[in-house]
Structure formats: structure tokens, C-alpha cells
């Protein structure tokens, strides 16, 4: 299969591994921010090919995992309002809230529908004009442009029963926050698809102010090995900068049309992240011009104070401070079929990845 097979060739991957072993001497910690990277690294067994002085840690790049408990609880409270249809990407449905989950709310009678594209929500809205549709908007700069496009489409088509509960987030503030917090990171394997939208300028501060290497990587094993090699070379030679390994997809200026959509519909605001608390200017809030589509401005519910699951260390895992195997619940009380924390639900969650590929 084109664009896949050529990046999975054993000889290619092993030749990069050999170069890495020759070049890399320093003890370095690299964070792969994106959940898709975490999954690919484990799926292809790449850690076993790296020299022992290179350590990879997973970051806060799984949209389901970083969505706050408050957001999950609010979604469930909305789902209990008569006449509401909740539309959501599938992974969210099984995330445990403070008391229950969307999956259990659905079994108890709430109308909760899985969609594969936010635009399906508009079709549902058109077909159910007597009901109100709330789309649960999660994800980073990758999924947010589609939500923005849906809101613009709804405005154009005068659909007045479509709303978005936005927990959309952006990447740079959280990456900076981790560095400022003092998490030991020598370089970032930066998210490929986020960067395809944003371009690479968003990482400049990490390199110029904090002296970190940043390499935007693709998702195949050869991509990731090459990105690690590029970072190792930067660190060994003291030439840390922003670079792109994933050149077949990511351009310096990004996708300007998608950026325009984001700028038109959203404004930056403080946002809650699971386990990380409130990070300034890290959320995408629906701007006042589009407030008629903002669920939080139209539906008011009281929810008890959200509680993080007892014993769950998702927050520390998302900060790269601990790994799933450090958690006493991992693979015992917390499994993909019976998750305690969000990181065990999503296929790209660090805990789910460690569980699936533990060997």
C-alpha cells in the first residue's frame, strides 16, 4: 500500500537504528506529544531498536485523555435534558465521569449518537428540527477546523438547533507548560497532523527561548526513527531547532484555509486539562460572533464538583512524570474493557497503548 509500505521496510528502519547507535552518546529524554505517535512506537516495537541512552516519554496529545472530568460530567448532564441529542466521536462514550459514563447514560435512555464527522451532526439537526443537537467538540488543531466549518455551515444553512460544547484545545501552551513545570525534556517529537494545520512556527519559542529540539514527525516506523535521529543529531551537536521530518505532509506555513476557519470561529481562552489543571490560553472557545451555537450559553445545568477517579495517575502520565506501569490500577482494576481513567479508553491513550502492547 503506497505511503505505508515504503515507510515500514525493515532494512530502512534498521539502517536508521544503526546510525543512531553510532551518533547518540548523551542521556536524553524525548517526549512524543501525540497519542498516535505513542501508539506507533509501541505497535512497531521501536523502543527495542533505540540505544539505551535515549528515553521516550509520552505527552498530553490524546484528545480524549486530556478532556477534563468537568467536561465529561457536563456532557452527561446535557444528555439528561429532555429533547437533547448528543453527538460525539466514539471514544468519549466510554470515558468514566465522576459517577457514570455516556455509554451508561445512553443505556438509561439518553439519545447519544456516535458520529464520524461533525458534519453528520448537521444532518441529524436537519432531520430532528424539534430537538436540540449538542456536538461534543474535542481534539486539537486537527479536529477543531472541522467543528469550525460545521458552525459556519450551520450559520449559512440557518440551522438553529445545532450547538457545540467546545473542549477543543491547542498544543503550544501545554508543551510550554510542561517545560516550565520542570519536566525533564531534551526535545519534542512534535505532532504531525497538528503541524499540518498550524505550520511549524508554533514551536519556535520552544527552540529559541528554551533551547529545545523540536522535530515534526510522521506516524510510520521509519518516520519516527528518523525523527529521533534528527533530534539526537541536534542535541549531540548543540544545534537545537525546529525541523520537519514529515515533509510529505507538513509545510512550514501549514494549512492556511484551516487556520482561517479556526480564527473566524474560535478565540483562545483558559482551559481545563485532565490532570494538568487550567492552562492559560490553551482552549478554543466559540467567539461571541457565533455564541448562538455555543451550548454553554444556551443550556444551564448544575453539576456536582467533578472528582478524578481514586488512585488514577492519568495526570502524572500525561505530564510524562510516570508511566502506566507505575500505576497500581494498571492492567488490574483498570483495563480497556473496564477503564478507570480516560487514558485507558482511547486507542491512542498511553495506558491503552501500554496495555495493548505490553510484552
Amino acid at each position, binding site marked *: *500500500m503506497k505511503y*505505508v509500505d515504503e515507510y*515500514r521496510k*525493515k532494512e530502512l*528502519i*534498521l539502517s536508521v537504528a544503526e546510525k543512531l547507535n553510532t551518533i547518540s552518546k548523551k542521556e536524553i529524554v524525548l517526549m512524543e506529544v*501525540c*497519542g*498516535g505517535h505513542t501508539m506507533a512506537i*509501541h*505497535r*512497531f*516495537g*521501536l523502543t*527495542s*531498536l533505540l540505544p539505551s541512552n535515549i528515553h521516550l516519554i509520552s505527552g498530553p*496529545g*490524546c*484528545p*480524549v485523555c486530556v478532556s477534563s472530568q468537568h467536561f465529561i460530567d457536563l456532557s452527561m448532564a446535557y444528555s439528561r435534558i429532555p429533547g437533547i441529542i448528543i453527538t460525539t*466521536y*466514539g*471514544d468519549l*462514550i*466510554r470515558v468514566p465521569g465522576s459517577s457514570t459514563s455516556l*455509554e*451508561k447514560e445512553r*443505556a*438509561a435512555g439518553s439519545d447519544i449518537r*456516535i458520529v*464520524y*464527522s461533525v458534519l*453528520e451532526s448537521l444532518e441529524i439537526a436537519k432531520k430532528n428540527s424539534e430537538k436540540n443537537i449538542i456536538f461534543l467538540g*474535542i*481534539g*486539537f488543531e*486537527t*479536529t477543531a477546523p472541522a467543528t469550525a466549518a460545521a458552525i459556519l455551515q450551520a450559520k449559512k444553512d440557518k440551522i438553529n438547533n445545532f450547538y457545540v460544547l467546545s473542549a477543543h484545545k491547542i498544543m503550544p501552551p501545554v508543551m510550554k507548560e510542561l517545560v516550565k513545570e520542570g519536566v525533564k525534556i531534551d526535545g519534542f517529537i512534535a505532532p504531525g*497532523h497538528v503541524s499540518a494545520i498550524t505550520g511549524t512556527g508554533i514551536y519556535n519559542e520552544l527552540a529559541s527561548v528554551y533551547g529545545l529540539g523540536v522535530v515534526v514527525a510522521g506516524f510510520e*516506523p521509519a518516520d519516527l526513527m528518523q525523527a529521533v535521529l534528527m533530534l539526537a543529531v541536534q542535541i549531540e551537536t548543540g544545534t537545537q531547532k525546529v525541523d520537519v521530518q514529515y515533509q510529505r505532509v507538513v509545510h512550514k506555513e501549514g494549512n492556511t484555509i484551516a487556520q482561517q476557519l479556526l480564527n473566524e470561529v474560535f478565540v483562545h481562552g483558559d482551559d481545563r486539562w485532565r490532570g494538568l489543571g487550567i492552562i492559560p490560553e490553551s482552549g478554543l472557545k466559540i467567539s461571541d460572533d457565533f455564541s448562538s451555537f455555543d451550548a454553554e450559553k444556551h443550556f444551564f445545568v448544575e453539576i456536582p464538583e467533578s472528582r478524578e477517579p481514586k488512585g488514577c495517575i492519568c495526570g502524572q502520565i500525561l505530564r510524562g512524570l510516570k508511566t502506566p506501569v507505575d500505576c497500581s490500577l494498571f492492567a488490574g482494576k483498570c*483495563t*480497556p*474493557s*473496564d477503564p478507570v481513567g480516560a487514558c485507558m479508553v482511547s*486507542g*491512542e491513550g498511553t495506558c491503552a497503548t501500554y*496495555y*495493548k*502492547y*505490553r*510484552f
Partner: protein
Amino acid sequence: MQKEHNILLGHGSGGRLMHELITEVFIKHFGNEILNDQTDSAILTAGSTEIAFTTDSFVIDPLFFPGGNIGKLAVCGTVNDLAVSGSEPLFLSVSFIIEEGFPVRDLEIITESLAAEAKKAGVLIVTGDTKVVNKSKCDKLFINTAGIGRMKKENLYISKALNLQSGDVIIINGTIGDHGMAVMNARESFNFKTNVESDCASLNHLINEVLDKYPVKFMRDPTRGGVATVLNELVGKTGLGIEISEPDLPVNNGVRAMCEILGFDPLHIANEGKVLIVAGENYGLKILEVLKNNEFGKKSAIIGRIVNDHPGKVVLRNETGGRRIVDSLTGDQLPRIC
């Protein structure tokens, strides 16, 4: 299982929740020495002969999909459950639960397919039932089939997986994941331009050709939950390990591409015309030859082996030499969003 909870969709998806439901509700009340075996078909003794008996319900949406419809599927599913138990399928019952307002024309097309598949499989439909329910009290059409097959004494051991040992080979009769992805593409709004079709087929003649010539140690049709779920049940039952080789897994390009895009594992996707066969090492290539000469086995392959290492675990060796655990499907597979 907590009684105050409601049934979730996950209770029907073949994973741990369903296992809990079966053991903690159904087996608890029905339990007997035949049912407790939980094999594809119950093996019953009637006088001096053994028969295999099984049942299955079909609630697929959409009713028509590339490669078949609910009628064809209702025959294949039950015929295959009988055939993988080592029996010769003979008789089926068919029950229809129909929603008020369902087009008679569609019912006729589905019934025609059902009859044609029964003829192809060589089984007779000998009894049935019809219920019509109020609009919105069921989703268009549900079908239940039950089947009876004649059991040969020498095949009685097949569904029990008793004589497996390290070195035995695991064979599949073609590409995996076709049914699940064809149905998903027909049902959801993906609009992938692909020629992926359901593999829906009655495998009793193919299985019979193999059993006539060579000994088989175990067989199972990897339907809901896919190949991964069957292999995990097998290591759970035997305490042995299984190693499969990713480059040897036959997967259609269309299925592979859809899985790559959606973040699915073909090993977890449903099949409706596949059989997994475990056989002694010396018979692997010979069985493969028989399979490849049948229309439903052209892309057959040896995909792995029984091993003594990592007991109770199914391990996949990938293209780059890395190894990973293949778990049973937990809940429904959900497409990735990022």
C-alpha cells in the same frame, strides 16, 4: 455483574462484558453439562448417533450490503457453526421478526437469497416462525436460524481443542476483515471508494474436503470479535501460547487501507466466510493445498503456530521484527479521531 445496571451494547459484542452476562445470568440459570462447554454447537446424543445443534440471530444493519444480505448471512452463520464443530449440516429452522411497514418486495429478495444459500450449502429449511411487531418495536427485520447437523464420531473432539501442542500450525482460508469492513462502509457515512465485499459464504463443503483427507485438531469461525478473539479463547482454553506473523496475514488492500485510516486492527474485524484451522505441523501444507483448490480458499495461508512460550497469550510478530500482544476485542472498535 451489577444488577442495578442496564445492558450496554458492549454486552453483545463478544468481549468480556458478554462473557460476564453469559456466565453470571444465563449459565447461572440454565447451566448443564452440555451448555457449560460453550462450544459453537451443542453435541447431543440421540440413540446411537450424535448430532450437533446450534442457533444464531441476525440483526445486521443494513439488511443489504456488498457481498450479501441478511438472508444469505442467516444461512451461512448457522451452517458454519455446525460445520466447524465437525458435523455435516442438514436441517435449518428460520424465524422472522418483521417490523410493521417493511416492504414485501425486500422480504422476498431476502427470502430468495436465503433459499439459494440453503440450496448451495445442501441444507433443508424444515420449520419456521413469523412475527410482525409494531412500527419501531424492532429495526426492520431480525432473523433467527437454528440448525442440526450429523456428527461423525471421529470428529467429536474438534470443538474441544484437546490435543493441541507446540508446533501445530494455524491456517485461515483467506483474507480477514472483509465482512466487518464491507458492512461498516455500507452503514456509516465514510463513502470509501473501495471494492471490499463481505466474505459471507457457507463453508461446509470446504471443511468437508479437508476433513475427508487430513486430520484437524481444532476449527472455529472467526466471526464477531475477529481472529484475535478466537485465538485468545484458544490460548485461554489450552494454556498454550500462539505466535502469529503479521506479514503472513492475508488482508485485502481495501480492508487494510480502511483499517489504517480508522485505526482498526483487521484481527478484530468480523468475518462470515472464514474458518481457522489448527493442525499438526506435518499437515499444514497439505491442508493448505486442499483449501487453495476450493473457491472459498484461494488466498489461504498459514498465519501462525502454537508455542509453549508466553502461555495464555497471543503474540504477533510484525514486519520490523517487533512483537506485541494481541488481545480480544474489548467493547466496540471505535475510529480514531486524531
